[in-house]
């Protein structure tokens, strides 16, 4: 190898672009870290010097370069992302190794490894360079395949297993087109100099074809290549490709255990810029797929946030907060939290006085049953739970038999944190005073809030599916297995929200035949029933479209029973079932299976009324 030149004006567009983007990224990263709340910032720096950094490095390699998560979701799409990211990365790494080996004194020139083939010429045919020639061609080919697939996807997204892909903005277009151009131009440039600088299977072959271009004009390819790179760097900050550098930072935050807490904090900013707008969430979102209203899906909402578009205030409301998009997101962006941030910002400041909340002393018990407002309005579930509790042998109390204080979730979801706190405090007091060791709730929404927002210390919190599971497995209630075909629907807040998947399935398996449903709508990928209280913007007809679609998917096998474990899911599905498959709560299915072994009903534990009664 021999050096031909050490500088040429064509390196300028690239070098200036590179300088720009390095300064931009350094400043931006500094700002994001500065914007973290102080304790989070400390935690972040501490995590950099702990074992967690190795996890982060592994995650960065897996996600930023290999795109393992996209692979898992969609192999073709995964390959496309991997080939571009990993191929490009390897070209840069190999370029630097070449410089290190053959021109170590040029390592200080940032452009040298990028335009190595132009500056160096091969002196003799030896195995020395051939290895690198081959490797460089190989990875260039890999990237080109990826780019080819990206081009194809842009015009035919369905072929890549995506029903919808995002619409582009101008900065995206510049970045996208330059990204498409960079590697074909590199191929042309390297092919043109392949005769002098050496090449392998790809560059040599293409070299014969571009050989017809006169030597003097050949430098034009290098200019074009450099300009494409430079333009890409300049377009990067305004484009969706900011996700490439930002995702690494987000991974560091995640592994440091930092979550966004309010709009504009560092994690929120990092999450917003980590969105690659791949559009996977558009298909995952039922408001888009079933109700055909994709305009507020996570990807567009995040773009509004990034652009400071006031429309984000409205679109934050149009979400069931079911978490399907978060589960599907290859970057793992918690868009629910981002929506929650906006909701909290625009929530009315607490105007209500909660001092009227009754100071209830409900007596002593081991097990406290909190039915919650929605179960109170679903007597079929409430009756089933009362039967189960009566037969459990536990000393129990129905905490909200006569009057109920909300668990606080609706207030939390609309961002009224102080109001929610007032209810949480009151409920905590009631629960503590009862001396209960276990709190059983029928509603996954309550369950999630009790788990996450309450500090009940040594009181164990169980959803009724978990409680029933224990009663069955310990033999405290006797059930008989029937031949009914039962499909189980995971409620959002119980499954994705609280990771309770096993117990309800075990319960159903003990009392009936648990029918499988397609994995695309099972467990983590479970559908939202469309009844979620979290959405305050969607019309009833769109909600219904979501519900009908979910119901049809769940009951495609015409099961006898569609069982769920949430009063809201049951209510919502019942509205569209029209007699196809009975919709039941898991507690009802259990009571039907224990019918023969029932003991006679005894007096209700408490029945007090606190409100005004008319004569």
């Amino acid at each position: 190898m021999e050096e031909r030149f050490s500088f040429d004006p064509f390196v300028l567009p690239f070098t200036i672009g590179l300088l720009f983007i390095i300064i931009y990224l350094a400043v931006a990263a500094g700002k994001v870290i500065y914007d973290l709340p102080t304790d989070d910032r400390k935690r972040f720096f501490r995590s950099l010097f702990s074992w967690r950094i190795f996890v982060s490095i592994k995650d960065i390699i897996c996600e930023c370069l290999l795109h393992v998560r996209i692979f898992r979701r969609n192999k073709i799409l995964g390959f496309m992302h991997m080939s571009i990211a990993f191929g490009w990365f390897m070209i840069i790494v190999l370029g630097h190794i070449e410089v290190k080996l053959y021109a170590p004194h040029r390592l200080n020139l940032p452009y040298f490894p990028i335009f190595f083939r132009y500056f160096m010429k091969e002196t003799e045919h030896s195995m020395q360079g051939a290895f690198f020639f081959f490797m460089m061609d190989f990875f260039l080919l890999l990237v080109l395949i990826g780019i080819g697939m990206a081009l194809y996807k842009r015009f035919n997204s369905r072929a890549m297993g995506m029903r919808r892909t995002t619409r582009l903005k101008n900065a995206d277009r510049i970045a996208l087109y330059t990204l498409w151009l960079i590697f074909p131009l590199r191929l042309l440039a390297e092919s043109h100099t392949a005769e002098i600088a050496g090449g392998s299977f790809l560059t040599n072959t293409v070299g014969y074809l571009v050989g017809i271009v006169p030597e003097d004009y050949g430098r034009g390819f290098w200019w074009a290549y450099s300009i494409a790179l430079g333009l890409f760097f300049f377009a990067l900050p305004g484009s969706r490709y900011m996700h490439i550098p930002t995702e690494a930072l987000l991974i560091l935050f995640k592994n440091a255990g930092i979550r966004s807490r309010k709009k504009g904090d560092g994690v929120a900013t990092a999450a917003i810029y980590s969105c690659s707008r791949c559009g996977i969430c558009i298909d995952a979102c039922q408001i888009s797929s079933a109700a055909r209203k994709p305009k507020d899906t996570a990807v567009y909402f995040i773009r509004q946030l990034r652009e400071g578009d006031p429309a984000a205030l409205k679109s934050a409301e149009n979400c069931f907060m079911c978490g399907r998009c978060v589960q599907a997101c290859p970057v793992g962006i918690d868009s629910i939290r981002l929506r929650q941030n906006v909701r909290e910002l625009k929530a009315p400041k607490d105007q209500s006085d909660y001092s009227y909340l009754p100071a209830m002393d409900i007596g002593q018990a081991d097990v406290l049953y909190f039915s919650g407002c929605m179960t109170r309005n679903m007597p079929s579930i409430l009756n089933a739970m009362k039967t189960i509790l009566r037969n459990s042998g536990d000393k129990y109390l129905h905490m909200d038999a006569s009057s109920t204080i909300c668990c606080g979730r609706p207030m939390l979801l609309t961002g009224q944190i102080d109001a929610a706190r007032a209810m949480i405090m009151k409920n905590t007091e009631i629960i503590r005073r009862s001396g209960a060791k276990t709190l059983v709730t029928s509603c996954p929404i309550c369950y999630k809030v009790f788990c996450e927002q309450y500090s009940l210390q040594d009181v164990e919190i169980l959803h009724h599916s978990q409680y029933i599971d224990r009663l069955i497995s310990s033999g405290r209630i006797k059930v008989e297995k029937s031949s009914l075909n039962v499909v189980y629907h995971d409620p959002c807040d119980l499954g994705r929200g609280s990771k309770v998947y096993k117990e309800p399935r075990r319960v159903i398996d003990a009392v009936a035949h648990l029918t499988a449903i397609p994995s695309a709508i099972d467990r983590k990928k479970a559908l939202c029933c469309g009844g979620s209280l979290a959405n305050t913007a969607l019309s009833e007809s769109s909600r219904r479209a979501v519900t009908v679609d979910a119901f049809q998917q769940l009951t495609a096998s015409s099961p006898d029973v569609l069982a769920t474990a949430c009063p809201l899911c049951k209510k919502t599905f019942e509205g569209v079932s029209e007699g196809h498959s009975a919709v039941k709560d898991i507690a009802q299915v259990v009571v039907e299976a224990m019918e023969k072994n029932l003991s006679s009903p005894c007096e209700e534990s408490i029945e007090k009324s606190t409100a005004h009664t008319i004569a």
Partner: protein
Amino acid sequence: MKNVVIIGAGVAGLTAAARLKDIGYNVTIIEKKTYDGGNVASWDRLFPDSRRASRLIDDVRRPLGEGVTIHYDQRITSLVKMKDGRIGVGTESLGIIHADALLVASGFSLFDAHLKEEYGYGIYDNVYTQADLESMFSSGKVLTRSGDIPRRIGFVHCVGSRDEKVGNRYCSKVCCVTAVKQASEIKQLYPDAQVYCFYMDLRMFELPYEDMYFNAQKLYGVRFIRGRLCEAAEKMDKSVILKVEDTLAGQTLNLSVDMLVLMAGMRPASDTARIATMLGLHCNKEGFLTPVDIFSRGNETEVDGVFLAGTCTGPKTIPQTIADARSAAIRIDEYLKKRKK
């Protein structure tokens, strides 16, 4: 003689049949149930004058005489517009009847009160619909499930009407008056009973209704409470404890009743959608059939020779249904006369 086929032997179907027969058409009625009179057949007495429902059905049935054939227990299997302009009406056991004109009078069915599970219909012993109460009136025994005389009775208005959550935004028109009628009847039966009506609005739109409402309060002491029921729970003694907000007094009330009566709204009859699909008729988003023009062509459809009457186009009182059915008979006659030329 030209054939007219009528779907439904309710008040609308019977009324139109009598008119058409008088004009001189050969009329056939297809009825899915085993009796005529439709929903009214299961009623005891009717507002505003408390006449027997059975007497009203007799009155609309009497003019039919021998000239009208009613086929009971029949399900429409096909409806085809034929090349000669007639309509082929297919049923399971009658084969295909060729109709020169078809009148759809498929009526309504009551909203399924089970869907408002929070009120406990089908779960609590003593929750009924207004139709259940009518049956009790007919049998002469208005008693709780355990056979006791109810001392407190609550009526819940707008169950499945004006309720976006169940997909019915519209007013079912007749339930308010029915509740006033039934509340008064209960008091006639049990003067000592306490009767409550929980309402959003009271829609007393016809002349006699306001008087009925006035008498219910003045003569019978029915208590009207403006507010929707928010919770209903069953006590051990099978009475129902209600939590309701009195929005005029601005306070929440807890009270228990021995009987809770739900005023279920009107939904299009279950077969209306099927009939509409077979003929290509328009339905509104609530599922009721829509005529060409509600002012001038209220009984006509976009399909030549197919006409509409009664509650298949939306909630109606019985006098409105009778007037609508007569108007449909006139339109059918005009249509058939024009076609003859």
